[in-house]
């Protein structure tokens, strides 16, 4: 066993250099400000108080969480039935359907978002079609609708794939047992399929909520720049105002919020599966 343990050594170095070191750097930046020529930095909580004492930043944070939650909920509501239908179709169809879900993700996200700009524009595809039928033109681009549409479109494949994976892993004999015992379809779905697919939903939530809450180019492109989310604030701290300390502090705040929500979902997951264990 000993010699195998030694083989992990390169990975430890890899993790230290590629993951731990950058995180520590961000932490260091977050708790410091740029100093003078003598001391390069000094420790402070100023970056954090600056964030929490400013209503504008708190409003941006609230809006970012709100958008991310809406996006996640829509992804579940739309993604679950799709995953369910795919999981219950024949194997050869399943492969094709999953392929159709994944193909768009092969194309760069930025390109796909630009495509939506073309579709939603005032004289874009949607409005041309509406105009053809004589329906007046509607403003779609640079609205809440456009931002949420862009987010859901970009992130829903992650949700579908996760739920699909947990549905196909499920042992079908549970369902047979349920119907033998007289449960109808709704009952067996609610008592068996749903609890057993919950881990998929949970990891789907993680995969959708995380990028949604920190996304910055989707609100920028589809929201017309008026739509400032927390990712945009962080981006501007690094790229335009050059205040890396404040940017890092916001990133740390986001990381804490995300860790906390992960912890909550994990807890819900555990409780649910404990309950599920009882019923099964």
């Amino acid at each position: 066993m000993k010699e195998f343990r030694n083989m992990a050594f390169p990975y430890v170095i890899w993790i230290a250099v590629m993951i731990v070191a950058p995180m520590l750097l961000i932490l260091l930046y977050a708790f410091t400000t740029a100093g003078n020529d003598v001391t390069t930095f000094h420790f402070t909580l100023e970056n954090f108080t600056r964030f929490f004492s400013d209503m504008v930043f708190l409003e941006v944070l609230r809006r970012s969480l709100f958008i991310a939650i809406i996006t996640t909920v829509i992804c579940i509501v739309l993604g679950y039935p799709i995953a369910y239908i795919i999981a219950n179709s024949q194997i050869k169809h399943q492969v094709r359907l999953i392929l159709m879900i994944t193909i768009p993700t092969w194309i760069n996200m930025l390109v796909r978002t630009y495509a939506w700009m073309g579709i939603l524009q005032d004289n874009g595809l949607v409005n041309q079609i509406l105009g053809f039928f004589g329906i007046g033109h509607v403003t779609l681009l640079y609205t809440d609708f456009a931002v949420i549409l862009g987010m859901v479109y970009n992130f829903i494949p992650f949700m579908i794939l996760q739920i699909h994976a947990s549905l196909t892993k499920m042992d079908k004999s549970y369902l047979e047992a349920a119907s033998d015992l007289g449960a109808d379809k709704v009952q067996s779905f609610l008592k068996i399929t749903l609890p057993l697919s919950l881990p998929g939903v949970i990891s789907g939530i993680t995969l959708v909520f995380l990028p949604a809450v920190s996304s910055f180019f989707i609100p920028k492109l589809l929201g017309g720049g008026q739509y400032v989310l927390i990712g945009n604030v962080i981006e501007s701290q690094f790229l335009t105002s050059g205040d890396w300390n404040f940017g890092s502090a916001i990133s740390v705040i986001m990381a804490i919020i995300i860790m906390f929500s992960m912890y909550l979902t994990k807890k819900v997951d555990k409780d649910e599966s404990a309950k599920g264990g009882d019923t099964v």
Partner: protein
Amino acid sequence: MKKLLVLTLSAVALLSGCGSSSSASSDAVEKYGSDTLKLYNWGEYVGENLISNFEEEFGVKVITEYFDSNEMMYTKLQAGDSYDVIIPSDYMIERMISENMLQELDLSLIPNISNLADGVKNLPYDPDNTYSIPYFWGTVGLVYNHNNVDPAVVEEQGYEILRNTDYAGKIYFYDSERDSFMVALKALGYSMNTDDEAEIQEAYEWLLDMNSKMDPVYVTDEVIDGMSNGTKDIAVVYSGDAAYILSENEDMSFSMPKQGTNLWSDAMVIPANAENPLLAHEFINYVLTYDASYDNSEYVGYTSSNQEVMDALSGEGGAYEGINAYLPREGYELDEVFIDNQVLRKTLSELWIKVKAE
């Protein structure tokens, strides 16, 4: 095995197909020390054939990377990336000079400097071209649809038309703290380089007011497509983009606001850590030739730093004949050049985020 042989042979054939250029590139290695030039430029900011012609003529290879803001370029350079030629804007060049990030140019290697237009000579950030050679230059103004907006109103109100609720929901505003505060400060009659707190506060309130009354869309390069398609009626636009828009859509007109504007220029510089400064000088000299400058300016729409090209394109039969956006306003008292000010930029950047987040 046979298959492998065929593959290898065809690969060799492919490689030898490039033989002519590879022998040329060894000449380039001898002459410049390397046959690759790393160019760091704005997106869509170079003529259609300029790069390929340069590569062919000098037997070298150009690798281009793109940035979309001076600050992004600066951050990347700070992170240690090395380029041979970069094309930043005036105030950023000033900052890079003060931070010793640029090499002094050897002007004996750039004889074409004599082609420079009068408007880009003796620019305040680098009066003797010690570090930089102008590439494009221009102003910032308003593009408007003259079918929906009366030209007389635009001339009379200048920037204040951006707060005229007759046009609410019909404007594009430029999404950068420098340009947005320039508009607000100029509209209020202040210098765009002010560091007076009261004046900045007033400009901030001007922008907040504009933001709440007009429901503007904040864009950068998207404004080009948007106005070419006539999506909105009024937009804050860089003159070169305006020239392009006007040549695409004849409903559009360009006005340089009476309150004054930003007289800007972008120039070619060689960073201190450039790996191939000799070839960089050759490239800068090449850009200043008539043909290269013509290709550049005609294709991109920005005003050439080459006097003859500028005259040819704006003159009779030129691609931008009769398009006022192509020729920058010269000698207007209220027009200013940006001065680098780190503290101010930080303040403005934060205020700008707040305007947009409202």
